[in-house]
């Protein structure tokens, strides 16, 4: 457990958006579970932190929620992407990849002799 990374500031929202894009409407538990699984167990996540993040995204209009019933007949609140959310995901994915590429180049530079 000790080696697991914490979730970086600001990336949780992006992970949530991506999860909802991949899996479609999903409840909070499902989102948290999926993020942890996707990281291949490398990420340590307090499931509780997902909820304020979901709320923030909803307040900003990126996702919306409604109560529904799960496969095993349990009532749960389902979150799904809005159009604005999709656009935000696109943009942030692009930004993130660009930042990553820059940093990768930067870090792979050989020391000059």
């Amino acid at each position, binding site marked *: 457990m000790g080696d697991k990374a914490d979730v970086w500031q600001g990336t949780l929202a992006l992970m949530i958006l991506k999860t909802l894009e991949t899996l479609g409407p999903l409840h909070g538990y499902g989102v948290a579970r999926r993020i942890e699984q996707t990281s291949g167990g490398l990420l340590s996540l307090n499931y509780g932190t997902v909820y304020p993040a979901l709320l923030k995204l909803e307040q900003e209009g990126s996702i919306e929620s409604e109560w529904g019933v799960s496969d095993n007949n349990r*009532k749960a609140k389902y979150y799904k992407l809005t159009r604005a959310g999709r656009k935000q995901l696109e943009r942030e994915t692009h930004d993130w990849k660009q930042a990553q590429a820059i940093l990768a180049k930067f870090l792979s530079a050989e020391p000059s002799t």
Partner: protein
Amino acid sequence: MSFMRSMRALFWRLSAFFRKQQRDAEFAAELESHLQFHIEDNLRAGMSPEAARREALLKLGGFEQTKKNYRDRRGLPELEALFQDLRFGFRMLLKSPGSTAAVVIALALGIGASTAMFTVVRSVLLRPLPFKDPARLVRLYEHSADDKFPYNQVASGVFKAWKNESHGFSDLAIVSLGAEYNLSGQSGQLPEKVRAAECSWSLFPTLGVEPALGRTFTPSDDQPSANGTVVLSWALWKRRFGGDSSILNQKIRLDAKSYAVIGIMPSWFTYPEQRVQLWTPVYHEQSAKDMEVLDSHDFLAIGRLKPGVTEAQATAELSVIVRRLHDQHLDDPFVSKAANSLPLLDDVVGDIKTSLYVLLAATLCVLLIACLDVASLLVARGAARRKELAIRSALGGSRWRLLSEHLVESLLLSAAGGGLGLLLAYAALQWFVATRQDISRIEAIDMDAIVAAFILGLVLLSALVAGIASSVKISGDQVLSALQESSRSHSAGLERVRLRKGLLAMEVGLTVMLLIGAGLLLKSYGQLRSSSLGCVTDNVLTMRFSLPEEKYAQPSQRVSFFESLLERVRALPGIQSAALVRAVPGQGYAGDSGFWIAEHPPLPQGQGQYALARWADPGYFAALGIPLLRGQTFDEKARLDSPLQVIISESFARQYFPGEDPIGKHLLTIGRRPFQIVGVVGDTRFTIAEAARPMMYFPIYTSLYGNVPNEATLAIRSSRDVTSFAVPGQKLVEQLDPELAVSDVLTMDQLIGKSTLDASFDATLLLAFAVLSLLLASVGLFGVLSYIVAQRTPEIGIRLALGAQRGQLLRLTLVDGLKPAVAGLVLGLAGAAVATRMLSSLLYGVQPLDATVFAGVPILLLAVVGIACLLPAWRASRVDPVIALRYE
């Protein structure tokens, strides 16, 4: 885009104030279902039910913790805390309604008074004049050759030279001072005497004002050959002509001559005086010869500076012109030698400036005292809750929360005070405007956005002063000491008591300053009222009139009017005496004349002497009780071209005939004709605020300026209530000439009251402020001492039980209260010694460091403060040791 998103989020969060419980329940349900999903998964993975639940809760990171994080994101926690503070503050304030009310009233008085004064100061002094580009307008003056009058009025000939030769002004205008007309009645209206301004046609373009209706003068109206034209003020048009616009181009009769009404000015426009009701073109009204005089300073001149020209440059050029005229007329000492100028705004408000600033300073003092009172109340509350605060802060309550609680409480108090103060300010302004119609620009007074901002600023400032002053002691590492100190109720924290005493000393200091200022003004007012005019003032009625020059062209017509008027008035039953004079004492400057003494060697060239000039009927001196010191009064039978006679006043004789008998000597004056001195009479003052000046009297029935004078004041003296003669007197005038109006029907007392209005107004207001602050300060002192005594009751009980004398305790407590008062007194006396210099221009016959006032105020203050301290001290000495110790 991201801005829109955060705005959206903000609205959502704001709306989360409502339906909190429902939202909480919803989230609880969501979390519950979350846990159930997790537990099911765990069970499927083969965990025991307990382990499954524990693991799910662990992974969630705590049920309540998650809920709190969620709530913080859902709403706006800072705002919610503020609301909580507000509710709490309200409850705390309502718990002690008495002291809360006292504080709110104190603040309301402070805020209300300073708002009203600020509004007046802003409207009258700070707001630009309502003219076009007012910063370029200047009033022009002559600097007299003898340096006695650096800001003298302008002579018509000097203005003419300025107009023709100067280059610094885009416009120049000249206005006569104090013109009046008889406005004849039309279709049964009474005739009326109206104040007017004779002005050059350029006055309106110079100021940049347009008429509301019609037009203003053109250059062709403003010359001797033109037909008579007149521009009416809005007020006169409404009042006398019913606001009927068909009056335009109609004729009205002024001084029995016909004038066409060509325009109506807008309602706000009154220049150069508040009282002006109509304007006529000066070059039409005055003869061409009168408009070229160099040594008679009868006019007001204004100019508009050309762009890029400074006031100093323009005035320097005017000075050169005046200097040249002076050098060309070295034989005439009354031709000035230089020019001066003032910005027009300074000129318009010059007289009232100091007293308004003094009153504003006084109200700010009252406000400060009120704030200090609030601060000491809050400190007392803080002290009572010190233990509670210490416990809360030990339990982890944030310092900021505790401080904000304090600030919110004082903000609530200030807001309530401010709201009430606003109403008060409104009422005060209504009263002020109604009382002081004489202040120029009073019509400009109104409350606007800037004043509202000022009030808001005052409220916030007072909240801050009160809040910070009282919460200084919350911060710092004093939690432990507070807990220790309050674990047993010995006595209040020394620090806190010291703070309150400091506040008190400041209050007392400010009060002392106000009291001294009020004392000085009151004493000065008293001096003013008791100074003698030099004549009888009880039961004397005056009224003014002037005979229209056209209708009374012949000297004999004027003489017979005067004679028959006096004869009829004297015949009224109950009249003691009646007289005619140019101006009675206290009625103003009225005019002067240069003179030479025929029997003395001629004066060096360029030197002149002048004295106030009056014409009067022979019975004037006896009628008003002015003593005849030597010689006799005018020859009763002298008429028209009889030998020229003059009577001089005592100071005239003293100054110009030292060690000589003036009787029989001759004055060369009024066209250098010889007037024989026939008598010397007692001095009289032309205004009550100034010592008597040399004065000469000429007989009203003889030709002076080529004719008999045409204007006069009728003075009636009676042994009983003289106001009952006002109507009969006016009726007599009407019988003699139905078209003739009288004006200024006033008793001598009213005349004096008018000229001392400023002084009495300032003194009364300042006294009210001083009494108010004395009250506030003693209430503050009383509160603090009572509090200290209550805090020390157990200690006093112990002292008594150990054998202390009650008298000793009384003394101890009294000294405790008087110490800050004495400290404040010393501070206040020092402050007043500096501050009263600002008052010196308002004082008459009193020095700014007047010993009586500076000695009297401390005595009064100590007496009041002593009484405020006595009750708590007496209570301290009455403490029953048994009861006091039982508190432990």
